[in-house]
């Protein structure tokens, strides 16, 4: 769909536009920006004034969007999450696709790029300290090849961050994003009636409501401050307590030896409890979000109780 260039508002491309988080971000940004929505899954209709494209970043035609529009900023939310597709397709989309997107951003002199990463990059390890800050090593690749794409995506963003400072790349590493419309692993688990847990393990977790996360993205777009930031709330809860608060019934899975739960997950093909994420239900990955909060003046609004009330209400 071609749209004439609109000079009144700066144009902003948002990838992954069919996702719930992108749509919340669009709601917050459309007053100030002219939105260009992109998704490889479907062409999303948001309103007449929003140009929408269904296209894969890796396709040749993708560059035409940059040619047609005078894009000033790119918000790259179009990541395949770990439970989607196979490892190779995820790698192609998340790493090769992002590489291409960043190259195009450089070619078309984009002045602001926001990339959505994940706290998974830190890896869930028994020896993780709490309140991990942004300089901590990314150990996810130690755990499983299935998270390589997340770490590689960050490495790529880092290279562009120092090589092309004019892109003003901001990488966001959020904790568990949850709330209405979110279809990631943790949100699926909280929505379920019966939820697997590892017997004897209930790691501390952080949750951020989708609306708060959308606010965080909007803040990042408006305030141009490149860098890497954790996005997390200053509130913590044990996984099993989060499930109880969301009215989930726990199904304990034998946790030792460690190979057993991974085997059970693989054999039963538990999509919502994938074997490569098992360690995240065993050991904590608690982020320190102070840098983002102070840099961007971010203050999440939703409490844990409000978040879990939503999941409880789904079951009544």
């Amino acid at each position, binding site marked *: 769909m071609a749209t004439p260039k609109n000079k009144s508002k700066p144009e902003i491309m948002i990838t992954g536009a069919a996702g719930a988080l992108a749509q919340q971000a669009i709601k917050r940004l459309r007053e100030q920006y002219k939105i260009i929505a992109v998704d490889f899954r479907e062409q999303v209709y948001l309103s007449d004034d929003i140009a929408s494209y269904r296209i894969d970043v890796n396709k040749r035609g993708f560059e035409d969007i940059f040619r047609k529009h005078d894009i000033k900023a790119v918000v790259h939310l179009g990541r395949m999450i770990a439970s989607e597709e196979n490892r190779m397709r995820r790698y192609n989309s998340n790493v090769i696709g992002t590489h291409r997107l960043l190259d195009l951003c450089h070619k078309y002199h984009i002045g602001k790029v926001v990339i959505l990463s994940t706290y998974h990059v830190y890896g869930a390890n028994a020896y993780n300290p709490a309140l991990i800050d942004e300089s901590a090593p990314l150990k996810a690749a130690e755990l499983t090849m299935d998270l390589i794409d997340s770490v590689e995506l960050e490495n790529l963003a880092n290279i562009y961050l120092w090589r092309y400072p004019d892109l003003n790349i901001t990488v966001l590493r959020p904790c568990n994003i949850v709330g209405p419309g979110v279809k990631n692993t943790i949100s699926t688990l909280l929505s379920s009636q019966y939820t697997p847990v590892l017997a*004897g393990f209930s790691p501390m977790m952080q949750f951020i409501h989708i609306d708060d996360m959308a606010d965080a993205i909007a803040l990042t777009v408006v305030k141009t401050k490149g860098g890497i930031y954790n996005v997390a709330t200053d509130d913590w809860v044990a996984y099993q307590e989060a499930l109880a608060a969301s009215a989930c019934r726990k199904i304990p899975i034998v946790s030792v030896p460690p190979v057993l739960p991974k085997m059970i997950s693989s054999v039963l093909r538990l999509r919502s409890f994938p074997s490569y994420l098992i360690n995240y239900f065993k050991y904590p990955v608690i982020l320190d979000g102070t840098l983002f909060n102070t840099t961007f003046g971010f203050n999440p609004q939703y409490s844990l*109780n409000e978040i879990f009330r939503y999941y409880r209400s789904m079951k009544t």
Partner: protein
Amino acid sequence: MKVRSLLKRTLVPKALDEQLNAIEKPVGTLGYDPWGFNVDTNKIAVALFKPIFEKYFRVEVNGIENVPAEGPVLLIGNHSGQLPIDGTLIAYALATRKQNPRLPRAMIERFFPTVPYLGNILNQMGGVLGDPVNCSKMLARNEAVIVFPEGIRGSGKLYRDRYQLKRFGNGFMHLSMQHNAPVVPVGVVGCEETIPAIANIAPLAKMLGIPYVPVALPLILPAKVILNFGEPMSFPSEECQEEEVTRRVDKVKEQISILIDKGLQQREGLF
């Protein structure tokens, strides 16, 4: 969680509940902090530990007023007794002191988080994975932190080596200097006799992936425990060479040694 509420209602007397509520603790809306400390589990643990502290080990506490009422502080003690009983006793003593009680955090061995149930329970009671980043972040949040710089060298030592201080790591001194946190030395007497071990089956320990497997009686003996808290020690925060850091660590070690000798003299019998 229902079990915890039930246990709390059954086991925690109202007076103790109010006493512990009065201690300021940086926890989130559901009673947890980032390291997994849980307000209610801690209360249950304190309530359960009361008879163990008062009747079983008949703990005698001296100089606990030396622990500052607020601000970051490191409680540095001698480690002994195979199990982390010493840390729990120090924590209980400080949580229940009459003036300005505090809920200190104890750094625990790195293998505990891998043990089902126990790892989480220790975290909820206030134990924290013994990692310098954790300790640093807690001091930055004005916590009182219990550290045993001997680590497993201390807790796993045999009965014949009792009250001989093993090598102290320098990590705690760096953290003390970095955060301007005073060091309160603690001499623990009695825990060496709780689980006297005559040997360590090292190959079995290696096979099981645990620090040591002591050859000892399968019970915890009711030895009388004496905790002597020394005067707070402050160290300049300017950077210095590692040799100087080691000298400062030795000063703390020397104080702990004096406090142990004092405790041994105070003790009238093993039990």
